[in-house]
Structures are given as structure tokens and as C-alpha cells.
């Protein structure tokens, strides 16, 4: 059985030119001066292929997850498919109206009211005025901010803001939908709601192309997936096999990460500037033996206004099994004294992490006294390696859930009517 095609990509490449020896001229004077100094020198240029010979077809109604580490070309692919930037070579045919969500709340203006922003954002996403008017009630309903519809969104909490933004995006009615990591915003409950909405969209016969670092979301939503590596598609097909392929390739080559900026929406005000995993000695490390003490370090800065009482939150996700657990400073009652923090580093020591071997990603949250201000999802990858934690020469089963525990066994039996007890394992 063959369905109709929705997206066909042939020989797609995209190159960027990187200029070396700091010869990046942002003013005409600099460019002119350099030209005068070195009239014949051709500036040293390097061509960087963000995408190289990418080919794939997507059938109508398919929900395709695009996964790959940072800098693999996922975002470039989405930008080309949504016509924000042009390919260097290649052919793309799209069968159906395309809507793309590369960020929630693009074009939201803080001075405008919720109502005005719905119309503006809808228009920016490509909806006609009539379409927005028809969907207006549904959008407001989904966002849950009807009381504040005529309040400028600058007075909204960041949660409300994101909910409203996603609500508009969720009502985009195009046959092909291109989504980039939109779920990485909002609180956990709202993320669940968004996932539900995405699932509805996927179920309604629309073609969805979905980039995410959240493997649980991908395996949950998608029927097939594309795995990208260094600008190429190296796997296309079934989602389970794709995820296996991806984690195998992740394990094979350490965990170096790209810049952190691309993980957060551009309107986030105080933001996380650096994230690292450290061992208890304070050395950077990504691979740990089971049961280790793991330190998560977060640096943040707040250029526009100082943060009053910063709160850090850590959520750990298993590659395929979803969220394992999470903790934040408010929950544990470890509050940072009220003050003005323009930039700071917070370290969180996770003592004897009881997680099984495998690969985990972490979502790190930064909040102030009132709510969440920034979060970085999927940036930190934690590898826990098989360790003989019981000293038995064996390692815990990796397929038995996600945690291990330290048991103490006791034996009780009756021998000849006499009760005998012993602690097992004491040789």
C-alpha cells in the first residue's frame, strides 16, 4: 500500500561560508579598510556544509521525528523546509500547505494585549484573519488565560505567556506541520498538554516533522524518524530502530555539545549561560560509574534585571523511558537568601544517583521566587556506565526499569524444629 507523498527532498545541501582570522566585517568601514590593506588577498574562507546530500521522502499522515545531536543540521533542515533560508543545492517538493513552528511566540509583543497578540502571532504563522477569528475561542480556551485577554502580555507570568503562545501555534491548520523543539517550554503539566495536542494533530492525518531532544516524546508521538549526523541523514525509517541507532551513535562518540544558546527561546530574559556535569572533585565529566555522586553546575546571567531569589531545578530523563525524576530548590527547602543576582553559579550535588546504566538527558530549570524564567532541555547528557556495584562480579540488569537499589537479604528457616536466621552474603 502506498500513500501519497507529502515531502520529497532530493540532493539537498546547504553551505555557510566561515571567514577566518577574525575577518568578519560588520561595518562597511572595516570591510573597506581591510580591502585597502590587502587589495589582492582573498580572505581565507572555509565552506561549512550544514547539510550535505540530504534525501528523503515523507508520506502524508506520517509523523516523523528528526533526531541528532547539536549541529547535525536539524534546524537548518527545518529552516529550509519552512523557506526561511534557501538551500545551496537540491530540490524540495512539498505537497500541501506548510506551517512551521520554529519557536513559540515568535512576534509576540510585550506591549500588546493577549487578544492583539493572538491576531498578530496567528498572522505571522500564516493564518488568515478569518481563520484566527474562527479559532479564537478555541485558542483562548486552550491557553486558559481568558481573564487576562485584554492585559498587555508584559504583565503575564512566563507560564501564561508560553501557554498563550503555544495555544495559537496549536491551532495552525496546515497539512504539513514543521515543529522545532517547541515542547521545551512551559511547566511539566503544560508540556503534557502540548504533547496531547501534538498527538491529536498527528492523529488527524496531518504530516508532522518534529525535531526534539526529548526521546520519550519522539518515541511517543512519531511513527518514523530521521537520524541526522554532521549534515547527513544516516537513518530513515522505523522510530524504535532509529532511537536505537541514535543512542548507539551517541555512546560511540562521547558527549561534546554545541553552544547552549540554540536551546532556548530568544525572548527568555534572565538565562542560563553554561551547564556542566562534574564529579565530586569538581572536574568536568560525562561518564560516571553507577551510584556516583554527580554534580550539576549551572551558570546564569540576568542582563536586564537582577534575579531576586534564584531557584535551580534538575529533571532527569531516560533516553526512551521518559522522565525519571526531578528536584528543585524550592521543593527541598534550600532557598537562596533574597538578594540581587545579576550572574551566579549554582551547583547541585546528586548523591549516589541510584540510576541504572544507560544514557540520560537533563532538563535544567532556572526560576525566581515567582516562576520559571529559563530552562535548557536535553543539553546535558549523562552516561552511567556498567559498574559492579554489588562487588559480585556482575552488573545490574539494564532492562529492569531505570533504578537500582542496595538490598540486604535475610534468610530464615527451620532446621529440625529449630529456627535459624542468617544474614545472606556474610561470608
Amino acid at each position, binding site marked *: 500500500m502506498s500513500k*501519497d*507523498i507529502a515531502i*520529497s527532498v532530493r540532493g539537498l545541501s546547504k553551505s555557510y561560508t566561515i571567514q577566518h582570522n577574525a575577518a568578519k566585517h*560588520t*561595518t*562597511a*568601514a572595516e*570591510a573597506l579598510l581591510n580591502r585597502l590593506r590587502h587589495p589582492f588577498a582573498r580572505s581565507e574562507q572555509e565552506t561549512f556544509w550544514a547539510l550535505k*546530500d540530504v*534525501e*528523503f*521522502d515523507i*508520506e502524508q499522515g506520517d509523523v516523523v521525528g528528526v533526531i541528532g545531536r547539536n549541529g547535525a543540521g536539524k534546524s537548518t533542515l527545518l*529552516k*529550509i*523546509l*519552512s*523557506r*526561511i*533560508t*534557501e*538551500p545551496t*543545492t*537540491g*530540490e*524540495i*517538493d*512539498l*505537497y*500541501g*500547505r*506548510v506551517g*512551521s513552528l520554529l*519557536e513559540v511566540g*515568535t*512576534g509576540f*509583543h510585550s*506591549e*500588546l494585549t493577549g487578544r*492583539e497578540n493572538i*491576531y*498578530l502571532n*496567528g*498572522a*505571522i*504563522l*500564516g493564518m488568515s*484573519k478569518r481563520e484566527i477569528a474562527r479559532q479564537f475561542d478555541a485558542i483562548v480556551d486552550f491557553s486558559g488565560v481568558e481573564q487576562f485577554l485584554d492585559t498587555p502580555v508584559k504583565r503575564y507570568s512566563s507560564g501564561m505567556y508560553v501557554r498563550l503562545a503555544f495555544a495559537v501555534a496549536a491551532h495552525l491548520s496546515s497539512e504539513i506541520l514543521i515543529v522545532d523543539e517547541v515542547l521545551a517550554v512551559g511547566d511539566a503539566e503544560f508540556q503534557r498538554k502540548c504533547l496531547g495536542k501534538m498527538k491529536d494533530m498527528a492523529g488527524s492525518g496531518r504530516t508532522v516533522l518534529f525535531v526534539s531532544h526529548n526521546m520519550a516524546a519522539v518515541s511517543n508521538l512519531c511513527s518514523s524518524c530521521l537520524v541526522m*549526523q554532521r549534515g*547527513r541523514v*544516516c*537513518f*530513515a*525509517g522505523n522510530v524504535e*530502530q532509529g532511537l536505537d541507532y541514535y543512542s548507539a*551513535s551517541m555512546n*560511540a*562518540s562521547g558527549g561534546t555539545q554545541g553552544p547552549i544558546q540554540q536551546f532556548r527561546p*530568544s*525572548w527568555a530574559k534572565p538565562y542560563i549561560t553554561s551547564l556542566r556535569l562534574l564529579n565530586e572533585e569538581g572536574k568536568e565529566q560525562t561518564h560516571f560509574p553507577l551510584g556516583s555522586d554527580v554534580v550539576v553546575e549551572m551558570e546564569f546571567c540576568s542582563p536586564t534585571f537582577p534575579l531576586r531569589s534564584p531557584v535551580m531545578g534538575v529533571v532527569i530523563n531516560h533516553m526512551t523511558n521518559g522522565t525519571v525524576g526531578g528536584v528543585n530548590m524550592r521543593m527541598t527547602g534550600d532557598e537562596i537568601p533574597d538578594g540581587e543576582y545579576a550572574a551566579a553559579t549554582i551547583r547541585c550535588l546528586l548523591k549516589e544517583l541510584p540510576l541504572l546504566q544507560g544514557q540520560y538527558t537533563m532538563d535544567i530549570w532556572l526560576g525566581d521566587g515567582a516562576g520559571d524564567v529559563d530552562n535548557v532541555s536535553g543539553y546535558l547528557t549523562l552516561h552511567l556506565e556498567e559498574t559492579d556495584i554489588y562487588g559480585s562480579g556482575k552488573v545490574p540488569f539494564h532492562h529492569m526499569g531505570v533504578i537500582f537499589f542496595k538490598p540486604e537479604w535475610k534468610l530464615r528457616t527451620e532446621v529440625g524444629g529449630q529456627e535459624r536466621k542468617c544474614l545472606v552474603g556474610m561470608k
Partner: protein
Amino acid sequence: MCEDFCGVYSCRTDRSAETVESNFMSIPLENRPRPTLSIRPRSGWQAINVMEIWQFRDLLLALAARDVKLRYRQTALGAAWVILQPLMAAGIFSFVFGRVAKLPSDGVPYFLFAYAGLLGWNAFSSTLSKVSGCMVGNSHLVSKVFFPRLVLPLSTVFSTLIDFGVAFAMLAVLMVAHGVLPGVGILLFPVWLLLLLLLALGLGLYSAALTVSYRDVQYILPVFLQFIMYASPIAYAVSAVPEQMQKYYFLNPLSGLMEACRWSLLGRGELHPGYLAYSAVISVGVFVFGAFTFKRMERKFADVV
């Protein structure tokens, strides 16, 4: 890494290899229907797709509405600034040029004379500065959403036109107050206004495209605007320019247009058909050149801005 798996799953990276057809690859290319949209790399000069801009008219209006709504939010006087700004400028001009320098004003009160000049000038200068800044000012949109890029500069024209409308109504009040009536020439005024806007749009589009790569334009533009304002008959009349200098003076396409504006509004001054024709040709030419340059450079905007 990739190659290891090529045999197992369908992998299209190695194009010379025999690839296993996965469910993605099941339909031969020639059996496919016509695509809704084809994306191909383009280079060089491009045609301007007017239909596409028309399809995005709702966005154009939404952006225009945003600009209008945001203009005077958080100001105490609000929309009154639309009238106050040209009134204050006209006051300064009539003091400096009328009272102090005692320049002729073709027999109209200097204040009215300067205000009429400023009406056209403001339409020109605000179009030019808004259009030239629109790509950088909306860089978050340019790098995150697709729409015909020309929608952004075109949307700025609306708020300029609204300002113009209000200032024009004020002029009518001033003219009645001073007992000055326009002649039939007023009927030609929309033509001059259109040419002014085309000239401003053309220059604006060219500099908007340039600003994306070189922010210097933002700093040069105000100086250029100030220079061109004094080089055009806005604060003074053409009659104040020495006769033998006039043919150079009218090389500035604005001179002819500004003079024509005042002729239409106040019924004073002279119409120079030759100079006007020259201004019209330049205006249309600059507009076409600006629009095509913008179109040519637009595909780089998202990567550079």
C-alpha cells in the same frame, strides 16, 4: 558511524550504493502529483511575486496594525504627537527662516508655508527611515518565520499614511484659519505624494537590504536625511535659491516634488514640468531598483541578520 548501519537500515547518504527502499522511498518520482510548493536554490535577480504578497495581505495588515498601536503606547499625550511634531517643527522653521532670516514665503504666512512643506517631507523621511530599519528591527521574525520579505517594508507605509492623514486634516484647519484656499492643483497632490513614497520606498528598500549586512547605514541615514532636507525646498521657497543655481538645485529629485506639493496645497509657487518629469522618472527608477535589489538580497537575510 553512518556507514556501519547502511546495510542494516535504508540509508541514503551513500548515493552510489544500492539502497534499501524503506517506506519513505516507495513512490517513483514521475508518478507524483504536482507539488503545492517547490523549493529550489535561486541566484541573481528575481521576479517580484505580487500574488504571494497579496496572499500575505493579512500579515501585512497585522504588522501595520501592530506598528500603529505601538506608536504612542506609554506616552502621556498619545496620538496628539502626530499633530504636535510637525506643528513644533513648523514653529521652529517659521521663527528661524521667517523671522530671523526673513526669507520669502510666496505670500503665505510663514508658519503655514513651513507646515505645508513639512507635510510632504515627513511622509518621505518617515517612510525612508522606517523602511530602512525594518529588517533589522524585525530580525526575530526574519530568522524564525517565512513570509515574503517585502511585506515588512510595505507594512510600515500604513502608519506613515495615517500620520499623514491626520497632519493633512490639521493643515486644512490651518488653511481655513489663515484664509488660504487651494486651487484645482490640489487634485494632482496624490500624484506627488505617490512619487514621494516611491522614491522613499526605493531608497529605503535598498538601505534595508544593505543594513542587514552593514549596520553603518543606520548611522549614515539620519545625516543624509538632514542634508537632503536642507537641500530641498521645505523650510524655504525655491524663489530663495539664486536663479543660476536652480538647475543644479533641481538635480535633487525631491526639489521638484516638494515644490509641486506646496504648489498643489497652497496654490503658490511655480510648477516646472521638466524638472517634475525628471523627478518622476528618478522616483520610479529608484523604486524599481530598490525593490529588485531587496529581492535579490533577501535570500541571505535570515542567514546574516
